Each structure stands twice: as C-alpha cells, then as structure tokens.
C-alpha cells in the first residue's frame, strides 16, 4: 500500500452533540490517501454523523477536521474536495442518467464536450454504458446506486464518502458489489470512506476498519487484526461471532499464561498477557477455532486430556442445539461448568452434519494460541 507522509483526512478530537445527546465523543483518527477506510458500528453509534461531518453537512461541536491538510471548519459542503454517495442514493428523479451524472460538472461550468467525455467515462467505469437516457424510475436499486457512484466519481474527488452503500441491496448483489467497490477503488485510486453496520462488508472491502461504539473508536485495525486480535469485548463480539468467558488471570509469564474461568475451566495460553496477577479478564474464543470430538477418540484429545499447557485445551459438554447452514453446522454445547459454548464445524464431506446430534456427549479442544485474552 502506498502511504504518503500526510494523511488525506485528519480528524482531531472531534465531538458532536445534539442537545444533550453525544453522537461523536472526542474522536481522533487519520485516514491515509488511497485507503479503503471503513467506519463500522451498530446503528446509532455515531458513524454516520462522523461521515456527515467530513462531508460538511454537520459541524463538529468541538475539534477539527482537516482534508488534505486544509482546515474544513469554515468550508461549506459544496466547496469541499469530497463527494458522497448517499444511503438513499439521492439520484435526481427528474433528470435522466446523463444529466444526473453530469450535474456537478455542469454547475461548475465545465465545457460541454468535456462533460460528455467524462460522463461517458464514469458510466463506463460503473458499467452503466447504454443507460444514458434512462430515467431513475426505470432503473433498479442497484443501477440507481451505480448512477450515484458515477455522479460522485465524475467529480474526481480526493475522497469518496459512502453511507451504507450496500444496505438496500439483496444478499447476492451485495456480495457482488463488495468486490466491485473494492475493484473500483483500486482502479480510480481515490480514498474511499465507507460507513456500514455490516461486519462482512467491512472485513471484505476495507484496508483498515475503525469500529465505533457509543461515539468512540473502539479499535482501529486492518480487518484480519480486528478479527484475530480484538482489543476489547465489544469488538470481539461485534465483529464475527465469539464465545466470551469471564475469568481470573492466575499465571502470566513471557511464554505462557493461564486464565481460570468458572464457566469453562482452566484455559492455557502459549504467550504472555501482561496483566496483573489475579486480574479479572475475559477469554474470547471463536466458534470455528474449536475442534469437536466424540470423547476418548483421537490422539489429540488424549494429549489434551493431560492438561498440558503447551498442547491443546480441553472441555466437555452435551449438545443442546444445532443449526445446519450448509457450509458449516453450528452447535450450542452445554458445558460441564454450566455455560453454553458455540462451536462451528465445516461440513467437509457430505454427511458430516450427521456425526453429532442433540444430547450427544462431546469433547472440544483448541490450540493454546486460539483464545484471546481481553482486559476490558
């Protein structure tokens, strides 16, 4: 990835309050040029407000936003070097596709010939060639979104802002658009900043993701770090699905650690945690990182049964629920400690889902580097 010295967008200690409600709370983050940046969070977390502040439709109550080194405090939306694709697409219903896409160029006084060329180029880019004379009400939602995309891209902004770009599309189209957006960003080289509540979208498209919770940045990291090394329980739970167990840190050395979880038993890790001894911590364990076995079957299980700190961890339980999803089967297992743990198992061959059923006694094991210890 290319990194310039100066970030394209600098958000410095920005807060936004609506009356007594704090939508964005002292957020500072830098967005690099050429990046596909995603603001991820549940609805009402302030991510859209943040995006609208970058676009200029809201003014920060406190703090400063710099775009390409310029302070944007007194710059109205129509003078900012950013363009936005709105959640409703906001395609002008009384203009055909050509007029929609050419609108920004027209009002900024670009010559007719250049408008024609750039509109054609933008439509080609979003694969809408041949739709020039269509009216918006003759197009599908996905096509209208492409119009909105072309309308923004034709302005050649420094940053393209996208507000929940895929939320209105059906699942298949959404998956396709995820790839297309990433591809498009690669092609045009413009910085993309996207707001979404959908973690799949964030993980698949982003170069970096800022997870927002209650107006604050919970974690800023590349997608794989976010998933494999969540910083706190909120991120672990919001990104992907996870089992979380509360416990006490009983052993913490540079190359190994142990957490005593009342619900799960003793959990061994093959790395240090750097937390105070006896601290209250949480163990996060992803369902797909747990192996499922019939008790007493297989060598790994027997090895794990020795409770070896550098081998696999072991737990036992009874299957309480299962749901077959085709590619994987999810099992809810009632642990001996009383808690429920979720395990997902890939259906590698056709009848794998028949291996276990309700009420089966099973044993689970996982690698000592699989669990994540969370301090908050």
């Amino acid at each position, binding site marked *: 990835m290319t990194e310039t010295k100066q970030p394209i967008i600098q958000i410095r200690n920005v807060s936004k309050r609506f009356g007594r409600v704090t939508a964005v709370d002292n957020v500072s983050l830098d967005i690099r040029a050429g990046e596909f940046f995603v603001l991820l969070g549940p609805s009402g977390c302030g991510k859209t407000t943040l995006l609208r502040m970058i*676009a200029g*439709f809201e003014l920060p109550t406190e703090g400063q936003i710099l775009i390409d080194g310029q302070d944007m405090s007194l710059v*109205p*939306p*129509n*003078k900012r070097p*950013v*363009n*936005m694709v*709105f*959640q*409703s697409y*906001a*395609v*002008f*219903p*009384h203009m055909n596709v050509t007029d929609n896409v050419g*609108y*920004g160029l027209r*009002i*900024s006084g670009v010559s007719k010939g250049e408008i024609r060329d750039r509109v054609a180029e933008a439509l080609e880019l979003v694969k809408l060639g041949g739709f020039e004379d269509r009216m918006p*009400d003759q197009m599908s939602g996905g096509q209208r979104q492409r119009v*909105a995309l072309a*309308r*923004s891209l034709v*302005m050649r902004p420094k940053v393209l802002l996208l507000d929940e770009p895929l939320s209105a599309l059906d699942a298949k189209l959404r998956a396709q658009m995820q790839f297309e957006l990433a591809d498009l960003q690669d092609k045009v080289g413009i910085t993309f900043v996207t707001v979404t509540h959908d973690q799949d979208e964030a993980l698949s498209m982003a170069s970096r993701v800022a997870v927002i919770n209650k107006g604050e940045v919970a974690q800023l990291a590349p997608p794989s770090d976010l998933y494999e090394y969540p910083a706190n329980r909120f991120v672990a739970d919001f990104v992907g699905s996870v089992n979380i167990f509360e416990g006490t840190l009983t052993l913490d050395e540079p190359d190994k650690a142990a957490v005593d979880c009342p619900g799960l038993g003793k959990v061994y890790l093959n790395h240090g945690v750097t937390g105070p001894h006896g601290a209250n911590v949480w163990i996060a364990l992803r369902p797909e990182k747990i192996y499922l076995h019939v008790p007493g079957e297989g060598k790994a299980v027997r090895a794990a049964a020795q409770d070896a700190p550098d081998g696999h961890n072991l737990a036992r339980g009874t299957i309480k629920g299962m749901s077959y999803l085709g590619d994987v089967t999810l099992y809810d297992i009632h642990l001996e400690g009383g808690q429920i743990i979720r395990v997902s198992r890939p259906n590698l061959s056709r009848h794998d889902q028949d291996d276990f059923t309700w009420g089966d006694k099973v044993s689970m094991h996982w690698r000592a580097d699989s669990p994540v210890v969370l301090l908050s």
Partner: protein
Amino acid sequence: MFTRTAIAPLEYTRKLWMRSWVGLTMLFLYAPLIVLMIFSFNDSKRNVMWKGFTLKYYEKALNNDSLVEAMVNSLTIAFLATIVSLVIGALAAVMLWRFRFPFKGLVEGTMSLPIIVPEICLGVAFLIFFAKVDWPTDLPWPLNLSAITIAHITFCFPFVAMVVRARLASFNNEEEEAAKDLGATEWQAFRDVLLPHIKPSLVAGALLAFTLSLDDFVITFFTSGPDTITFPVKVYSMVRFSVTPEVNAASTILIVLTVALTFVALKYQGVKGISDAH
C-alpha cells in the same frame, strides 16, 4: 344471453351498485352546470322552457360593455393574485418546512387563518382597513383593482402554502444535500432539485388560487370601490332583476375559459406529476 365472467371480490368497478353510485355523484355534480350551459342557447327571455337554439345571447353578452369590463377585471385580478400568492405561498411553505424558529406554531396557525375565518368577517375587516388607511378609490385601471387584488392574495396564498407544504413532506432531503455535495450553491440546489419536486404542487396551487379569486363574491363586494366591478358582482346585480340567458352565456364563457386553462396547465405539467408521489 351473452356470457360474462364472474365478478371477482375486488372488482368494484364492475359492480352495478358502484356504477350507479358513481353515476349519481356525477349527475349531482354536473347536472346544474350542464343545464346552465344548455339554456345559454335558449331562444327565450325566461329560463324555464326550451324555445329553440340561438347564439344571440352570446352576442348580447359580448356587446354588454359593463359585463365585458367586469370579466376583464376579474381575470386581471385573478391573474395578479395567483402570481403573488404563488410566490408568497411557496416561500412560506418552504420556510415552515425547512426552519425551526420560535413561535413557529403560531406563525403556522395565523397563516391558515384566512382559510378558516368566515369570508364575511374578512370582507368587513378589509372594508374597515381600506377605509382607515384611506386607500385611494379613483385610480386609473388597473390600479383601481389594487384593493381587491390585495384582499384576494390574503385568502389565496394560504391555500398555495398548504398544497406546497404537503408536497414538500415527500421530499428526500438527501437529494438537496447531494446537489450541494456536487458543488451547488443554496440557490442552485433550490432551482435544480427542490423546485422541480414542488412544481406539481405549484401548478395545483396556482389553479386553486386562480379559481378562488375568480369566483369570489363576498370579499370582493366589500373591497370594490364604487366604480370597480368584477364578474361575480356584476352577475349578482343582473340576477337581481331576472335570470336572463345572457347571464347563462356569460357564465358558460367563464366555465369554458377556466376549464381550458386547467387543461392547458395539466397538459403542460403532465397529469402524472400531480398524482406522482415521489
């Protein structure tokens, strides 16, 4: 007998009772007008018996200078009142829709007052007001219509504001933001995005204002000076003696005129626009 397919539960338009009801409603609405129009061609001094076809009452009406003058006055007033109401009404609607300000509810309430207050009260109020400010009554045409026009604007523009506001409720704010995002100024965004959206309501509001102004009798009666007369007031004075086919002829001309105007307006707008929800 000829074969018919059975009537499905929701095919109301194929049910006899529904059709008769619609027919009756139409009859109730339009029979008086049609009778009036037919009798304008009646060759008789009285409007009771059909005596034969003639156009002489049209000739008579068009040669009646004071009737023509009243008609011209009415159309002038309606035209001016419509233009001004359209501007004030649309601006008021946009203001009430877009901004929050203290006493907004009060402003909104007082604005629709002319719709609610009985016309007779408004008429008397205008009479007193114009007398009090000593509004000149002996001005040359068309300034002699100023008092009536002002009064008409007062009760017409709230209707325009109401229609425009209803239309604004369906406006997607993001469209205006998108325009600004693409570089439009406040005015350009208004002209290119908001105005096209409210255009159907402007046409509807204009038609409403025009007809309201054209046929207003009460308020006009109180605000017209001694020498100015409008069509409804003139017809009233003619009817006091007897309802001659001349009145019918003049009314028919007025009806045809307004219908034609409405037709042109809808044609220009495209009827789709009026009912269109987005």
